[in-house]
């Protein structure tokens, strides 16, 4: 018992491990404490992992998004990506804070004309009100033809400006729907 205890004691000594083990510089396994040896990374115990892409600049670094109990618990670089090789910059590394920020809005907010405050609004009511306003603006500003009788088929009463963090599939539906409703003034950060 005693001999075994002594051996455990010596092997628990970082310098011994550094000299005899695979970590001669003493920066990895040799320096590990009993406490850190007992820890488990939350990436290992996550319920699921999604392979994603950083939402900031256009380098397109690979991200791994770890979820436990319905919450994002970690976002880290994807070492498989030939673009980023697992690295993330300060912004990419802060992506978990981005998606879990307490400042994120999760409720629809509504400001009446001339009001000084926000109000609550149900999402389906908001969608319906927006649809009514689109149709009204379109009717009020519709142009069938130009002065020479050539077709115009449009409204210049509606504008849109999109960010460039929208997905291709989203941009596709946005352009398709606006085009079909005759809304021409559809723009994007890509102009800017």
């Amino acid at each position, binding site marked *: 018992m005693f001999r075994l205890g002594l051996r455990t004691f010596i092997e628990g000594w970082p310098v011994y491990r550094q000299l005899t083990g695979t970590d001669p510089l003493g920066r990895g396994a040799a320096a590990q404490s009993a406490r850190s040896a007992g820890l488990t990374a939350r990436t290992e115990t996550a319920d699921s992992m*999604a*392979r*994603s*892409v950083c939402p*900031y600049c*256009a*380098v*397109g670094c690979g991200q791994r998004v770890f*979820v436990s109990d319905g919450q*994002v618990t970690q976002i880290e670089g994807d070492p*498989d990506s*030939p*673009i980023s090789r697992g690295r993330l*910059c*300060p912004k990419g*590394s*802060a*992506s978990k804070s*981005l*998606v879990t*920020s307490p400042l994120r*809005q999760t409720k629809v*907010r509504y400001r009446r004309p001339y*009001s000084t405050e*926000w109000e609550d609004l149900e999402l389906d009511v908001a*969608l319906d009100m927006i*649809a*009514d306003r689109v*149709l009204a603006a379109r009717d009020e500003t519709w142009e069938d033809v*130009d002065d020479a009788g050539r077709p115009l*088929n*449009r*409204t*210049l*009463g*509606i*504008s*849109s*400006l*999109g*960010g*460039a963090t*929208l*997905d291709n599939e989203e*941009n596709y*539906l946005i*352009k398709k*729907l*606006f*085009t*079909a*409703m*005759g809304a*021409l003034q*559809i*723009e*994007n*950060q890509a*102009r*800017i």
Partner: protein
Amino acid sequence: MAEAHPVGFQWVMEAKKRGAKVFHVDPRFTRTSALADTYLPIRAGTDIALLGGVVRYILDNELDFREYVLAYTNAATIVSEQFADTEDLDGLFSGYNPETGSYDQTSWQYEGHGNHTRARGTGKERETAAGLEHESHGAPVAAETHRDETLRHPRCVYQILKRHFARYTPEMVERVCGIPQEKFLELARAWTENSGRERTGVLVYSVGWTQHSVGVQYIRTGAIIQTLLGNIGRPGGGILALRGHASIQGSTDIPTLFNLLPGYLPMPHHAEHPTFARWVDSIRHPGQKGFWGNSRAFAVSLLKAYWGDAATPENDFCYGYLPRMTGDHGTYQQVLNMIDGHVKGYFLLGQNPAVGSAHGKAQRLGMANLDWLVVRDLFMIESATFWKNSPEIATGEIVPEECRTEVFFLPAASHVEKEGTFTQTQRLLQWREKALDPPGDCRSELWFFYHLGRVLREKLAASTKPRDRALLDLAWDYPTHGEYAEPSAEAVLKEINGYEVATGRPLGGFAEAKDDGSTAIGCWIYSGVYADGVNQAARRKPGHEQSWVAPEWGWAWPANRRTLYNRASADPQGRPWSERKKYVWWDAEKGEWTGYDVPDFEKTKPPTFRPADDASGPEALAGDDPFVMQGDGKAWLYAPRGVLDGPLPTHYEPAESPMRNPMYGQQANPTRKVYDHPVNRMNPSPPEEHSDVFPYVFTVSRLTEHHTAGGMSRTVRPLAELQPEMFVEVSPELAAQVGLAHLGWAHLVSGRAVIEARVLVTDRLTPLRVDGRVIHQLWLPYHFGTEGLVTGDSANDLFGITLDPNVLIQESKVGTCDVRPGRRPTGPALLDLVAEYQRRAGMTADRRVPIVTTDAAGGDAAGNTDERSAEAARDGGGDA
């Protein structure tokens, strides 16, 4: 690059480790400069002078890659004798019309082409940003050209180039840019020594080049250098645009832009494209050489994707449903129209123009004059709260109780709460898997627009109005899933890829597109992303398990090609230029092109192939024409059409500059898009008087720790803590001159706004000796606004609105200002200060900024631009 694209910069460091020499050109010393071999400070807005100097250095010393230049470029092509250069006309090209502020390009044509091309001005192209259509292909020209392979003909492109750039001497570079001659020569030597058969050099740029009133020509100058040196279509070469947003490339490919339909098809113009046939012919140009000849199939397939069964050959595939452009409908014109009360409703989708667009006040005043505004974002951004928390509340210009705009804020799903593709900066589509459902009312744009369309169609179901047919006939039956009825992004991607209408079979690529309505393709350049029914963008074979080209990671358009025009990596006979720079080559035994990448060429067309005289489309391309989307199969050193401000780049001063142009009488881009509007007064520049009221040059860029308008970073605690405050960087010399104290306050004044910032005195900025005087430059981050965890004044408020004529991008990388110590005034006193500066600078309401500042070419004398009325601009001048 190290600051704004740090992870991409690892590859520059890899190259440096292997012996590459890294040069960094920037008005401000940054983390990139610290890691470069040589840093060149430059006066903001003078890059064409620097790059033009490199072009001259190459030509004067005959350092071009002659075999490449002769075989693959238009250097030998002879240009019309009617062409007159900026050398002859003091900074203007032939064909300038001072009344419309635009060029008639007829005299720029290749010899013998003038009679085939309808003489026309380019005002209309400017209004509709038609240059953007050329993102995937060159402007049309006839395939047959007169050439002088000896390059001695005085009107061959090579000789024209030589004359045009003759005055871009090292002395002139120093005089214009403030770069010492020896530093310039170090750059020119390194660039040329590291290009050619055995070596390639790469050029990397970002919005420091594009956000200028002559931005497209910056890139053109870079392209001329890279083409002369044989650095296009070859490994380690190219011109790399570092784009700043996750899918900004995707946002132009599948555009939410007023002038484009998916795949760079033009939105129809009421006068140019009255019929389907005219529209299609304007894209494909019958008889035209190159791959664009198939565009009828792409156009028909798009209309089939939009209108499904309703689109038939008999009704021109519902072409009549498309709305028509009549002029400039861009975001800045829209904002001025909002101020003038012409716009009812506005959608902002993950975009924050109150902070991110030029002239923040104009943006906010526009929003305050709408019937309704819909903001969809992750966070409560400045563009959602302008009615209660904006600089104009403090000045009394916006009063909440008097502001009628009804605002809907709808929370959005984050990038991990939805699935879909981003297209990153190298045209690579990468699919994101969804990690979890969005919280509360948060939804994707896919959800919002699918369901908005569904509700609109339900409300109109009984309508008999012709205008509603386009909505009711729309193919809008996407499968949905889950508790929120989320539409399937994969189904949308499949439509983008295209499919056979009869069977639903996904297409393998755009070569399968048909013009009879039997295929539907949402975006032809993306065709192949869902080949074999497999989501190719979701491929994630680890980088270390495949070649360095990594073709099985994601999917690049077109056809999963990683380097465009890679046929140019082989010599005319199809052999690699060198073993070291081998990439794509002709395998004579197998009779096909092969290599590390997907060849950008018809697979079995041999290098020796010569087309028949009457061939058109792809069949008209010879086996040694690598630039397959160009009308003559050649890279264009000289652009006979398609670039609205000239066939060659020319140094013009920024729209706001403290200096008279040292190179030409013409001060600024004579074709830039200007908006004479009471809200948009531009600071005077020489030769106008009073430019000394705004004696300093300012520029803006990003911090590593923040993102664009701050909506995704000032709201995030770790990032807000790292960069908590708005600041301005000034040189010790300027600080001493103006009396600014390190960590004290300063305020900056332009003709539009006053903003304040904490002062950082640093030698990262250096005064430049330019044309016999000292120019001081200031630098600001543009991320700050009034919302979020950390707040500050917005740098973009200082800018006015002036746009590049080709793509209508704003000049927001350079302007003039004054700087004063201390904090800015508040309330009405702030408006008084701006008014005082406007008065001193002569910026009266009836002043018109002079556009033409030389009397050469019969152009009007300075100041006489009365003909440039708003009506003329809106109609595209007298071009119709």
